[in-house]
């Protein structure tokens, strides 16, 4: 459903993505691995239109999306969960959630749709804190909030950037469980991770990036078998 073909993206003068290609099939949870600075986040930003690729093509449900603005891409059904838990700090938890609803009106079309009520039912701790400012949440709560805020737009695909970074191991498990739940609800996920031991518990398929290119593609068994690839591109 999402096909990235040979994209080249720049940050100022540095050539970050040098022909990256990957694809996502409906219902998958795919994980993009690799060391710091190899272009993982830039790949997500390029899909979302936050960074504009100079070359290459990105098709979502057979529609070319390179050159579109982030808000247009979001309206097509791609959700983006930025790294560093970028919640709106001076808004309350409830207002943060309202920001996720596209056009401000909650459609109640299907039972699978994400609604504020459903979020509160699933995450009672967010409901308890609905009137607190985003800035006062814990790291784990902020991460949950960033993910569900995006889900409230009812995207078909979400791009999640380093959801477990800087979280305590117990919270990491919560966040991964949550992503698993989201995937089971029918949302396709492309997740960027540094922590492959965490990722391996939930992902169906893996890509490994190095220097702006994809250097490995495979499922869990293939990744576990490819010891030298892991040593070269993942382990420090």
């Amino acid at each position, binding site marked *: 459903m999402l096909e990235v073909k040979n994209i080249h993206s720049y940050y100022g003068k540095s050539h970050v993505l040098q022909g990256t290609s990957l694809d996502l099939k409906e219902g998958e949870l795919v994980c993009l691995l690799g060391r710091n600075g190899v272009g993982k986040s830039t790949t997500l930003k390029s899909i979302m239109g936050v960074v504009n690729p100079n070359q290459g093509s990105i098709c979502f449900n057979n529609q070319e999306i390179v050159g579109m*603005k982030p808000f247009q*891409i*979001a309206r097509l059904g791609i959700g983006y969960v930025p790294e560093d838990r970028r919640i709106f700090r*001076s808004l309350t938890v409830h207002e943060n959630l*309202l*920001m996720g609803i*596209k*056009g401000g009106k909650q459609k109640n079309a299907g039972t699978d749709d994400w609604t504020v009520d459903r979020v509160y039912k699933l995450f009672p701790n967010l409901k308890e804190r609905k009137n607190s400012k985003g800035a006062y949440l814990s790291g784990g709560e902020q991460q949950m909030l960033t993910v569900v805020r*995006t889900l409230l*737009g009812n995207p078909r695909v979400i791009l999640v950037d380093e959801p477990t970074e800087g979280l305590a191991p117990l919270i990491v498990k919560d966040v991964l469980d949550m992503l698993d739940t989201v995937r089971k609800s029918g949302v396709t996920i492309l997740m960027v991770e540094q922590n492959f031991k965490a990722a391996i518990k939930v992902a169906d398929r893996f890509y490994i990036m190095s220097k702006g290119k994809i250097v490995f593609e495979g499922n869990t068994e293939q990744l576990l078998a490819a010891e030298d690839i892991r040593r070269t591109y993942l382990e420090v």
Partner: protein
Amino acid sequence: MSDIPVFFLHGLAYAGLLFLVSAGLTLVFGMMNVLNFAHAAMYMLGAYFSYSIMLHATGQFWLSLMLCPVILFVIGGLIERFLLRRVHALGHVQELLLTFGLAYIITEAVKWFWGNYPIAINIPGVLNTTIQIFGITYPVYRLFILCCAVIVGLVMAIILFKTRLGIILRAAVNDSETVNTLGVNVPLVFLGVFAFGAALSGFAGVIAGPLLTIYPGMAQEILIDAFVVIVVGGFGSLGGAVIAALFIGELQSFGVLLFPKLSMALVYMLMAAILVIKPSGLFGEKQ
């Protein structure tokens, strides 16, 4: 010290003007990270347009009060859409230079069209009177300015804190890029905020006209105070702008009364003190 209530009210009236100019400035800075040097030029244009309107349609203060903000909304919109947006990708320094250049161009244009000398505007008839308040006789016009600022402030507060648009605006002050990825047409929001800020500034110019004489340096004069207001109040905070405008307005007013030679310096001393105690301003978020 029977002067105290008079200077207090003078301070409030000036605070009202300052708030009207600063409100747009602080929202634009909070969202777009652009310190708009041309913002006070909109205030000056408001004053001069209103002068011209009143010249041609004698005494039509109310007409110009309605018309000038509309004209400046359009001018602000055009500046954002066709100048600022094109420069946006190049970075903040270029955006700053653009607004800086615009401020100069507008000032020179004003000198060219209206002349490089002060012009006095008459206070509109109904408001050209005095009333008894706190046991003193006080000009109604200054109270009118204060009322305008209070009404605008309340309307803005309702929009910011009670509507969906307000949630979007406050979220955009925090992180406009993320708002964009959530499906909100952020470029359109920027356009609207910039144009609205220009309109408010122009509105302030219209009502400032009869109070202060209008002249081509009036933009620079209020711009400095408005910058101090948004620094002290905290970038992007409307509540901060209200409190800081009150501080600066009263400080200017009582400064003239108590330390005439220091009245300008007092404003900077306040700003320096606030920056030392709380670098993000009274109500600013750390960025």
